[in-house]
């Protein structure tokens, strides 16, 4: 199998405490992994740490290997060579990813020229093809548009186009549809689903919305308080959630909640990274917590994934 990404024992610490803790993750070619969890669980930090673009003052331990290369040991120039080319990101709130002062076309062209020895005209042609591929009407004219002249949905399509222009082997999409209204969201999702498989080698889709994950991904990793608490193929996760947190998430989702159940909210709040609870991070909010949860829960391997919960250790 061809491994695209391997994260081993990754810990990311900001001033107050670890935001991502001892996290392991593997991604093979063709994988589209959904990374799901409440806001503040560390999924966006995980995304940016793969690109090596964490805010000032962040400390990182562990290794991230991308196509065999240890990303954090690369120097700036070598890492830059990967970014935007083999390793691309669609940042959260897509419209904010575009520089307001530059034309759409110029921003895509700039990305192409940073990585490929092609003429400006060729780069422009690539940008144009790309805008067409993401379904932007009148792409020729849009090349000359400024971001503020486009709607949110169109800007998000531009972000997608820009990330895919060089056919990356790994695409990370952070909340690719959350800033859009519902009808646009559906269109962008459909487009995105097709494009990921066509253009990217593998992808990580970060979302708090299980519906988005269900449509785009073949695997799901559920994150809670900086750790992955459950990982499973997408069908299995929805059919047979094992971790109590996963169950709560599913119950809280309007479309996915089991029929007849009342839509539940998860009581309590995400723990503060500076002072997480001991043992299982979810214990204070867990409906089935027992005394054994006070100890660090084991990672229990399952076909296609695993679960971090003491209730599954015995069986």
């Amino acid at each position: 199998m061809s491994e695209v990404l391997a994260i081993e024992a990754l810990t990311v610490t900001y001033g107050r405490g670890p935001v991502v803790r001892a996290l392991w993750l593997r991604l093979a070619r063709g994988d589209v992994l959904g990374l799901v969890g409440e806001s503040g669980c560390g999924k966006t930090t995980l995304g940016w740490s793969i690109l090596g673009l964490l805010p000032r003052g962040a400390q990182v331990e562990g290794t991230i290997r991308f196509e065999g290369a240890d990303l954090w040991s690369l120097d700036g120039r070598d890492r830059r060579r990967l970014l935007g080319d083999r390793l691309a990101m669609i940042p959260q709130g897509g419209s904010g990813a575009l520089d307001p002062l530059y034309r759409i076309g110029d921003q895509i062209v700039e990305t192409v020229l940073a990585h490929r020895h092609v003429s400006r005209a060729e780069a422009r042609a690539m940008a144009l093809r790309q805008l067409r591929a993401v379904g932007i009407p009148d792409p020729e004219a849009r090349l000359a548009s400024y971001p503020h002249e486009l709607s949110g949905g169109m800007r998000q399509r531009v972000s997608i186009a820009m990330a895919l222009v060089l056919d990356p082997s790994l695409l990370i999409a952070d909340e690719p549809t959350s800033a859009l209204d519902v009808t646009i969201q559906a269109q962008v999702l459909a487009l995105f689903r097709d494009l990921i498989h066509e253009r990217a080698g593998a992808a990580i889709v970060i979302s708090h919305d299980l519906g988005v994950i269900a449509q785009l991904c073949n695997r799901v990793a559920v994150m809670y308080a900086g750790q992955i608490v459950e990982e499973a193929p997408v069908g299995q996760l929805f059919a047979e959630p094992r971790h109590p947190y996963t169950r709560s998430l599913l119950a809280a989702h309007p479309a996915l909640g089991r029929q007849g159940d009342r839509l539940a909210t998860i009581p309590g709040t995400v723990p503060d990274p500076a002072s997480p609870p001991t043992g299982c991070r979810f214990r204070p909010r867990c409906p089935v917590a027992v005394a054994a949860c006070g100890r660090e829960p084991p990672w229990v391997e399952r076909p296609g994934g695993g679960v971090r919960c003491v209730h599954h250790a015995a069986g």
Partner: protein
Amino acid sequence: MGQAILTRVLLVIPILFGMSVVVFAIIRLVPGDPVAAVLGLNATPQLIEQTRHQLGLDQPLWVQYLQWLGGILHGDFGRDYRSGHPIAQLLAQTLPVTFELIVLSMLIAVVAGVGLGTVGAVWRGRVPDRVGQVLSTLGISVPDFWLGMILILGLALALGLFPSSGFTPLTDDPLDNLWHLVLPALALATGLAAVLVRITRSAMLEVLDQDFLRAARSRGLSERAVVLGHGLRNAAVPIVTVIGMQLGYLFGATVVIENVFSVPGLGRLILDSTLAHNYPVIQASVLVLGAVFVLTNLLVDIAYTVIDPRVARPAGA
């Protein structure tokens, strides 16, 4: 697109009109007889009467104003009764000198101020940032004419690196011309540079935190393209705003700095004519310097539309 610019251009007209009224009022507000003041002490009553008629001072005020303004619009600023030269000629000699001085100091200030401010933002809290902050705080507080004197004392008189005063016309010897203007431009630029360090630093810090900048990095752009192309370009709006606000200082300070360095510019003309109570020359030179300032400010405003497409092309337009 042109509408924002057109509105701004039209706004200049009442300002220039108001300016001309204020400047015209000078001669009427002076206590005592302005004509006697213009002609000096040994003017005969006959000459005073004659000049009064020539200046049109025996006509109604509004006629005088219109005649004066009409002349100016045709490039006729009247005559300097002391030297006998047409005032327009004095202006034509001095304005380019001052303009060159201002352009030169602006260049120095922008390069030094924006450069130091950007460095400070990128290396926030480190040595270059600290140095920039201290220099900027001192630069805002230093009296520029005194700094000019210190520069003369140190760089010109003690080390002999630059001439201490005087001027060579640009057309005579461009290099020597530049040589004479370096120190005055440096003195004039300090205040603006110091303010620019601050505003650039804070604007850059804000921009460096923006999502689109991290996104630019995520596309693998070089650090230079990220910081200068996207960072500084986005910080340019507040920087240009401050340049616009500080331009007035630059223009006004030429009156003082040209005196320190004996630069024969418009500022010098304003000062000399003021000290000599030569009112027609004061009026003309103040009006011209003020108008050039207003027009330069207009250019700065138009620059926004070049920098920020959101100003020139509002969404939905």
